[in-house]
């Protein structure tokens, strides 16, 4: 008898197990999002901080002229201004405000114009910094969203295509750009193909040096795999010219011919080859071509 209760327990365990990775991803996304949002808010809070600072500087100047009593007054004012900021941003910004006030202490000087200039200079880079930080956080947010991930992958794909075109003379039409729901997969494929392109190039240069038919055969096979039947045909032909006794080379040659819509020539070639070699593989291929199994 089947113990359904026991089985249900195992099922529950299995379910929990399969949900753990999802849960981890979910939680980590939430954590990342909260961190990002904290950063974002802290950056927007920085502008009021600067505003309070400029006030402070001005007040300081007044302080320099005025009495100590009033300075106490100002300091209480300062506290009032910064109070709402503190509640939001916590220690982080607090530290910043204190260090900044120290800086300004050093640049204090009697001239009002000079002060203003410094203030302007100080403000501008600050705004720049905050805005750029905002942008980057926005970007990070975008990356989390699916759609833009896709765009980015498409970019990579296009780039790699461009690269291919520049590095290779042979007309290779492998990856047609088309809207796809799985850009990730595609990217992997293009990388692989780029590798084999490089492989081929390297092997061709090696072949040019030593004329080894094994190398040209390899190139023919690779081109065949890549769907570049013209080049596969060429290299099979080259291989045959060096050594006309390599079975694989004949097979690739015939297969490429079929792919290039020269079925009759493929059959003729195979028959010739079979006549003197009695190759079993060639016979099988011939049969497959004739029966239309190989197209």
């Amino acid at each position, binding site marked *: *008898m*089947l113990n*359904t209760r026991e*089985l*249900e327990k*195992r*099922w529950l*365990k*299995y*379910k929990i*197990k399969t949900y753990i990775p999802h849960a981890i991803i979910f939680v980590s996304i939430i954590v990342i999002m909260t961190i990002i949002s904290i950063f974002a808010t802290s950056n927007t809070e920085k502008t009021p901080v600067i505003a309070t600072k400029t006030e402070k500087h001005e007040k300081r100047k007044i302080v320099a002229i005025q009495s100590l009593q009033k300075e106490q007054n100002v300091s209480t004012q300062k506290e009032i201004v910064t109070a709402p900021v503190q509640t939001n941003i916590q220690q982080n910004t607090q530290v910043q405000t204190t260090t900044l006030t120290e800086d300004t202490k050093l640049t204090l000087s009697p001239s009002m114009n000079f002060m203003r200039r410094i203030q302007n200079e100080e403000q501008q880079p600050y705004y720049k910094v905050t805005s750029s930080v905002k942008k980057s956080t926005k970007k990070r947010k975008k990356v989390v969203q699916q759609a833009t991930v896709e765009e980015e992958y498409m970019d990579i794909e296009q780039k790699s295509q461009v690269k291919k075109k520049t590095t290779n003379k042979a007309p290779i039409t492998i990856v047609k750009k088309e809207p796809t729901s799985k850009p990730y997969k595609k990217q992997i494929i293009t990388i692989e193909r780029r590798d084999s392109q490089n492989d081929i190039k390297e092997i061709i240069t090696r072949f040019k040096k030593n004329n080894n038919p094994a190398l040209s055969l390899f190139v023919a096979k690779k081109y065949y795999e890549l769907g570049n039947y013209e080049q596969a045909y060429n290299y099979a032909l080259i291989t045959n010219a060096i050594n006309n006794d390599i079975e694989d080379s004949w097979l690739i040659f015939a297969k490429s011919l079929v792919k290039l819509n020269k079925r009759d020539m493929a059959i003729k070639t195979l028959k010739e080859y079979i006549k003197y070699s009695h190759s*079993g*593989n060639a*016979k*099988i291929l011939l*049969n497959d071509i004739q029966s239309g199994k190989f197209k």
Partner: protein
Amino acid sequence: MNSIFVNSKNVFLDTVNPKDYVQLDRVSTIYQSLKDSIKKPLKMILLYGKPGTGKSMFLTKLSLDLADTQNVFLYDTPILDESEFYKTLAQDVFETKYAGELNFTQFMKIVKDKNLNQVPVILLDEAQLYSEELMEKIRLLSDTRTLKFVIALHKTEKEDLIAKEHFQTRIWETIELENSLPTELKIYIQKKLMKANCFDTASMFNSKAVNKIYKLTHGNYRDTNKLLYGLFEIYSTYEKNNQLYSIKTNQISTKLIEMAAIHTGLIDA
């Protein structure tokens, strides 16, 4: 009265019975082409595919269908001893009893002497178990054009098969059986159930359930049988314990599919 769940469960027993054969479009086309190539002269036919893709079922059905018009002999378990192999064939095909050992030359003589007016078809299942030597002799036998062999074996790599010397020249027809596609799987399950008059359970399989099953079995017939046997075992257990109210019965529950997969070991949990 028998429970529908128990009946449905028995539908998925892993047996090879030509009566249970389900016609699937893709398989029927292959079937037709195989029947055609049997008629052609001098052709050894190789049927291959992963375990559980229905090779044995296919051969059994073929032997049944051909029996009306032809002499067909099906050996579903291989006869590994060479002498035993010839003796069995001599007896079955040529009705010649042999007491002692029978070697290849002697058997060849029988084959040549007996003038059968029709070429008998010999179906060998599980042929991956035959030795290279015996395979070689089978090859030579089919060259005499007096016997036609159809050989079914597990798929290794096709390239491997072709590389093997004994398949290189004589086997001209190779036929591959594959796992089913999701749409075929649905037809397979439903037809199988309907053949056993289990219409209610057949209608419980919607596309969602079938896709779930497909994910677990990749469309392999044997694995699907195993999973569904387990599934209906679970259903009938709930029924027996009067707990059917706690599960969905208008459609197959994904939870129960997963439970069956755990039970049969398709999911390890």
